[in-house]
Every structure is written in structure tokens, then in C-alpha cells.
């Protein structure tokens, strides 16, 4: 195998896939960090976002990218609604109840997708796209745009968390909710804002996955394990950690076939998750211990 083949067929897909994992993992890490529970409906919310984008595209008959902002807004509203309807009641109960509730929400969301959009695989754009060559590296437009979109999302989110008043409030609540409340941070507003951002990120992850592959009602659920592995690998509560974790998991999955039979590709995320919990439970970038 030549070096350029290695880049084209292992590293490039790994980076693209990893950056999609990263967008999802950022949402997971935020829920983990600020609200302190594992959100199992994350994947199915991503599926829903992807399908909302599909419908938007169908409505305007334009490029799928038109669907992205619409899907992000809708998914944000759905996430806030889910929190108000299901999770809010359980806030003062043990967190495991909320985790279980989120599993129920996942099943509900998936069923809604199956009822509304059906169960067949579908795509944003029919046909196949052959890649363009950039100095020997094969890239498709959609892959370039995916990377660009992920970069924009991450930079925007970082800026928001570091510079804005609300971003600082979210970080404060992540560090210590009681202290944050004493300092005048309204936990309810921060919770709502967190869900809105998480919902939007879910939709983005689902959309990007759909853009690079196919859409189907199970796409998000299958994304859940690598996304959790990425969030924990990077360090819970750390946005840049989730980005790093996502890239590592994505590339590791694509590289795994070089040394392991293809059947074990899906296990790569598991192994990474186990190793990191065993060796460095705080994650690469020193997140929270759960």
C-alpha cells in the first residue's frame, strides 16, 4: 500500500467520520458536564434532525445545506421540549432515572421518524459523487464542506462558551451548580440553553452523517457508542476534548482493519472506551470523573 492510498482510504474517511462523531460527542459532553447524566436519546435526536433537513430540502427543492439551519432550529426546539416534558420532573431524583427516561425518549423519537419518514434508506442527493484530486488526495466537495461546517461549529461554540455571559454561566454551572446559583446564575435558563445547543448539535451531526452516507431510522442509534467513546476519551465536559476524541475514534475505526478482521471494526470504539476508563478515567484533557 502506498502512502497516498493510506491517506485516501484510511485517514481521510477517518477524519471525516471522526469530525461527525465529534459534533455529536460535543453535545454528549455538554449534557454530561452541565446536567450530569448520559443522554441516550442523543443518537435518535440526530436521526430526527437529519430527516427534518431532508423534508426542508424537499420543500424548497434546493441544496441540502438549506436544510441544516432549519433542522438545527427545529431540533433545538424539540430538545428543549423533551427536557420540559420528560427530564424536568426527574431533576431531583437519582440521575439514573433520567438516563432511563432518555432511553424511552430515544425509542419514541425513532418511532416518530419511522412513522413520518418510513424505514427505507434514503439520501439527500441521488447518484454517486466521484472525488476530486488535490495534490493526490481524493476529496469530495461534501467532505470538504463537512469539515468546514464542523470547524465553524466548534469555533463558534468555543467562542460562545468563553466570551458570552451565557456561555460563562454554562461553564460555571458545569463546574459547580450550587455555587453558580448562589452567584446569581439562573439554572433553569442555563438548562434550557444547554438543551437548545445540544439539540442543534445533534441535528448537525445527523445531517452530516446523512450527507456523507444514507439516512435511515437507525442511523443515529448506531452512532451512539462511538460518540460516547469520543466524549469520555476527550474528557467529560470538555468541548475540545470531544473534538479530539471524535477524531481519534473515527481514525482508529478506519485503521483497525489494517490489523484486525473487518468484523471487529465496530468493537474499536468499545475497546477505546474500556481502555480510557481503565487507564485514564478523566479523559485525555482532564474532564470530570463521573
Amino acid at each position, binding site marked *: *500500500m502506498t502512502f497516498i*492510498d493510506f491517506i*485516501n*482510504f*484510511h485517514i*481521510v*474517511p*477517518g477524519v*471525516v*467520520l471522526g469530525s*461527525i462523531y465529534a459534533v455529536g460527542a460535543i453535545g454528549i459532553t455538554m449534557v454530561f458536564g452541565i446536567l450530569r447524566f448520559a443522554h441516550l436519546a442523543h443518537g435518535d435526536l440526530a436521526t430526527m434532525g437529519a430527516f427534518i433537513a431532508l423534508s426542508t430540502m424537499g420543500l424548497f427543492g434546493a441544496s441540502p445545506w438549506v436544510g441544516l439551519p432549519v433542522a438545527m432550529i427545529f431540533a433545538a426546539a424539540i430538545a428543549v421540549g423533551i427536557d420540559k416534558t420528560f427530564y424536568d420532573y426527574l431533576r431531583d431524583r437519582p440521575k439514573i432515572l433520567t438516563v432511563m427516561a432518555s432511553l424511552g425518549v430515544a425509542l419514541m423519537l425513532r418511532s416518530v421518524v*419511522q412513522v413520518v419518514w*418510513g*424505514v*427505507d*434508506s*434514503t*439520501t439527500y442527493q*441521488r*447518484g*454517486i*459523487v*466521484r*472525488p476530486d484530486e488535490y495534490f493526490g488526495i*481524493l476529496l*469530495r466537495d461534501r467532505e470538504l464542506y463537512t469539515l468546514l461546517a464542523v470547524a465553524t461549529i466548534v469555533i463558534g461554540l468555543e467562542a460562545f462558551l468563553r466570551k458570552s455571559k451565557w456561555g460563562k454561566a454554562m461553564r460555571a454551572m458545569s463546574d459547580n451548580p450550587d455555587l453558580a446559583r448562589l452567584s446569581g446564575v439562573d439554572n433553569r435558563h442555563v438548562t434550557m440553553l444547554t438543551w437548545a445547543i445540544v439539540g442543534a448539535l445533534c441535528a448537525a451531526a445527523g445531517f452530516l*452523517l446523512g450527507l*456523507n*452516507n*444514507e439516512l*435511515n*431510522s*437507525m*442511523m443515529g442509534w*448506531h*452512532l451512539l457508542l462511538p460518540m460516547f467513546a469520543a466524549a469520555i476519551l476527550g474528557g467529560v465536559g470538555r468541548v475540545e476534548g470531544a473534538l479530539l476524541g471524535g477524531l481519534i475514534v473515527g481514525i482508529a*475505526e*478506519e*485503521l*483497525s*482493519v*489494517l490489523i484486525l*478482521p*473487518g*468484523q*471487529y*471494526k*465496530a468493537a474499536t470504539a468499545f475497546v477505546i472506551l474500556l481502555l480510557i476508563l481503565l487507564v485514564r478515567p478523566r479523559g485525555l484533557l482532564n474532564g470530570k470523573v463521573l
Partner: protein
Amino acid sequence: MKLKSTAALIGSIIGASLLAATPAHAQNVKIGLLSGITGPIAAMAPPMIAASQLAVAHVNEQGGIGKGGKLEVVVGDSACNPQNATDAATKAVNIDRAVGIVGPACSGAVLAAANSVAVPAGALLITASGTSPQITSINDKDLVFRTVPSDDYQGRALARTLKGRDITKVAVAFLNNDYGKGLAEAFKAEFESLGGTIAGYSGHEGSKASYRSDLAELAKGGADTLVIFDYGDGTGLTILRQALENNFFKTFIGADGMKSDAVIRELGADNLGTFFTSSPVGEASSSLESFNKAFTAAGQSPDAIFTTTSYDAAFLMALAIEKAGGDNAKLAESLRAVSSAPGEPIMAGEWAKAKKLIAEGKDIDYKGAAGDHEFDKNGDVPGTYAFFKVSGGTYESLGEMK
């Protein structure tokens, strides 16, 4: 005192009416119809269910079961995986009291539903699309049958066809489940014994977002042809797309699972000039013609995969129930009796005739839309396959495979 006597009166009335009702009242019989309504074969499931429902409609229109009873169908989603299949089969057999199951659709689902539900409960199971060679060897107390031939035949026929087309070097990508693995093993054995070279042979898990690295590994062997044993509505679509987009291979061969409309719909017929699939087909017969006519009249396409076998599975189930005459322990024995030669031939749709002959105690032999269905001792049938290419937005047969 009064209360007591009233209760006694009511009790005796109920008891008497029950006694009186049993022989006089028609007994409806329930069967479970399980298919992969969600999951990787979701696109194939609706026509399969419609075909089975058509058989049930024929039964009920032409006299029903027993003395005026109807055949009732409980549809369940086996989702093409063992867990859902077990749940759906358990519900059908233990809650809805179905005497038999038509389905489930996928091989892994069939193995699970048979081993953990149907066989222990003594329910007859006829699958119309579970093709794994593994199903042959289930310890099934003669309760598991299929109207579709084992993939052992299909894998071998495909190997011979490829050799016949002068393809001597291939790479094989198979979905790591009972279906994909069974096919791949049969194909590999036959292809190598014919002197062909397997230049890459790798299983994969379903539902990953990228298979480019898997494909790069497979392509290393230098084969131009990729054989994909997977589902065209699931991972198979992803693999085919990524292989096409990256020029890993020139020719693509799939088995019945890849013969999905989703492949043509999403990738476009223009890009599929070098994509071929094998698929079981019904042998030309008057039975097949009458099925085609009835199914078309019902607004469905008889060319959709596994429709003939689905029809036959449900029809055979009904024949077995009728023949057993209410004794569920005799279902399997009855199934063999109504399907094997000799006997008065019964074509697809001829329920009234079959019912009359059974009532007269005559032997019948069902000749189905998909074939004669002479079950061997494992409940398997031999099969006929055709080789398909994509043409004008649909699959077009290139002729029978030897």
C-alpha cells in the same frame, strides 16, 4: 341465598352455552406473520407481507378454515434481528395464540424465533426468505420449513455463473451474520473448487458509516470484481456506493439481499451498469401465472423479491391447518402430506378445490407459485435462480443460473 342461586344459574348458563357453542360455532385460527418491517430489509418487507396476506385473502374468500372459520393474521415486526424476532414470535405464539408462524424474514431472525419460541411451543414455522444453510440444521422436531431454497444452493450457483462469465478472480465482502456468512462460505467453497481465486475475503459489521478502509483492504488482492453478500437496503448500499465512488472495483455481484429497489433508487441506474445480482425465481408454471395475475390485480408487483415464496408459505400454512383439522400437534405431518407428491395437484389460489378434496379425505399436492415445494427431511426445498442486471430503473433477468 338468592345471590348464590343467581350465581349458580349464571354459571350453568355460561357452562351450557360454552358446551353448546364449541361444535356449532366457527373457530377462527390465528397465524403469526413476521417480517423485517423495520431494519435492513425494510424495503423488501411490504410486498412480502402483501403476498402472504393475498394467500390469506384467498383462503377466507373461498370458504375459510374448517366449518366457516376464518384465518386471522397477526403481523409482527422481526426487524431482521434475533432479539426482535424472539419478541415478535413470543407475542404471536404465547399471547395471540397463533398456531403457526409465517416468517420471520432474515436468517438470524428465523434461527432465534425457531430455537427459542416456535420449536419449544410446538408451533409450525414456515419462512419465505430465511436462506442461511444454518436453518437446515436446526434441531426442529420437524417444525421448521422454508419455501425458499438454502443459500448453499445460491452461493454455489452464483460461483458457477461467475466462472461461466469468465470471472476468475473476485473479492468477497459479506455481512457478518447468518445470512451473509452462509452465502459467502458456500460461494467460496464452490468458486475455489472450480479453480477461481478469492483475492480478498472479509466480513463486516452492519451499520457503520464508512467502509472505505475495508474496501481498500479487499482491493489490495487485485480483483476487479467485488461480490457483496449483504442487504441492499442496509450496509450493502453503503458499501456499493463507496466502492463505486472510489473506483475500488469494476464489477459488482450481489445475491438476493442486494436485489433491492433502494440500490437503484439511491445510486441511479446509470451508475449500475456493472452491477449484477442473483435471486431465486419461480419456475414458469400455471401456478406462478395465476399468482402473478392475482398479485398484479391487488396492485402489487409480482417481480418484487420473495413474493412467490411468501404467498406459498402462507398458503401452505393454511393447507396444513385445514388438513390437521384442529389438531395442532399434527400440523407438521399435515404440511408434508399436502405438499408432497403424489396427490391431486393444487395451484396457487385454488383454496376451494383443496378444501373440498381435504374434506373428502383425498391426498393433495400443492404446486406453489415459487415451485413444487417437495420438502426434504430438513424442511428444505431445492431452488431455481436467475441472474439479473439493472436496466431501465429495474432488475432484468439475464436467464437462469445452472
